[in-house]
């Protein structure tokens, strides 16, 4: 599992690759704690599987962003992750976009 972070203006971007599970979730949660902004976009294009720890990490991150006046957006869910979101009803909690540009632009609507 690879985790990279970058900034696009006021938006912090988290790029994840591979299997997003309980091994990587603590690193993601720790990253939230260091964020300079409350606007976060998570790139799931390379994620092949997510377990409940990962889902909890995303939900926790979203709540944290909202408490600080921002939000979290997700984009580029691959089909296995899309199905997992559907079965766990997680798609109700997040705004999900096809591309990074759409996800970032959603903060300026």
């Amino acid at each position, binding site marked *: 599992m690879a985790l990279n972070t970058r900034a696009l203006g006021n938006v912090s971007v988290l790029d994840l690759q591979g299997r997003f599970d*309980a091994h990587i979730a603590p690193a993601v949660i720790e990253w939230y704690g260091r964020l300079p902004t409350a606007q976060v976009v998570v790139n799931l294009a390379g994620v092949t*599987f997510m377990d409940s720890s990962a889902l909890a990490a995303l939900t926790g991150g979203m709540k944290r962003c909202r408490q600080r006046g921002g939000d979290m957006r997700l984009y580029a869910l691959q089909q*296995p992750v899309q199905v997992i979101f559907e079965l766990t009803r997680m798609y109700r909690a997040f705004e999900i976009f096809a591309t990074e540009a759409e996800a970032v632009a959603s903060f300026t609507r």
Partner: protein
Amino acid sequence: MAYADYALWKTTPIADEPYLSIVIPAYNEEVRIVPTIGAIASHVAGMGFPWELIIADDGSRDQTVALVKDLGFANLRLLCAETNGGKGSAVRRGILAARGRYILFDDADNSTPIEELDKLLPALEQQGYDIAVGSRAAGGAEEAHRTLLRRTLSGGLRLMVHHLFRIGVRDTQCGFKLFTRAAAHRLYAAQTIDGFSFDLEILYLAARLGYRVAEVPVTWIDAPGSKVDTTREVQRFLRDLLRIKWNDLRGVYARA
């Protein structure tokens, strides 16, 4: 694969005999079972054959059964047990209920990604093996997050199993095994061990009955939250080794 394949699989009962049955034993898996089912359904529905998924619950006291029922998948069968009989008993119930031409036993934590199925199927479909065993010990396997203790114990047990039991498979315990239906039904009908070591008994029987077994290297990720208590399970494993030998000496397996 197209999402449409998955959508069709979950809503439309298959009319023919399944080409593949996937059996997942589950005990108190409310946290892990739904993402695992999602990953499996997403991948296998796109493989182009009819298949069924069997969740063999083992007397869970959490929300596992309710969560699985709530999915309402047309080709998912949920087998319930009133009491916790051990992982081996759950796998046996699932395997004996499976109707597929091939039957995969897979763990509920998705520690071997379902994509690894693509490596096991050709051994049975094209190479004439009766069983393909996912292996963390075969050349080319990838293991992640496995503790030194578990690696050391596994290595020691592998040597013992190989030399005392004449089982050629180096990794007997990986929860990712594919069988022909005939082999699976014959072997699991003869199974006597319901605990952690049931895999070993199945492979011992397979060797005894002359089934051809392929050991296929797979990727395996030690999933946090494993219910395996290493020390306790090693003790049980050693006890079960003796039990298997004793069973054989008493002729218990002669009827298999």
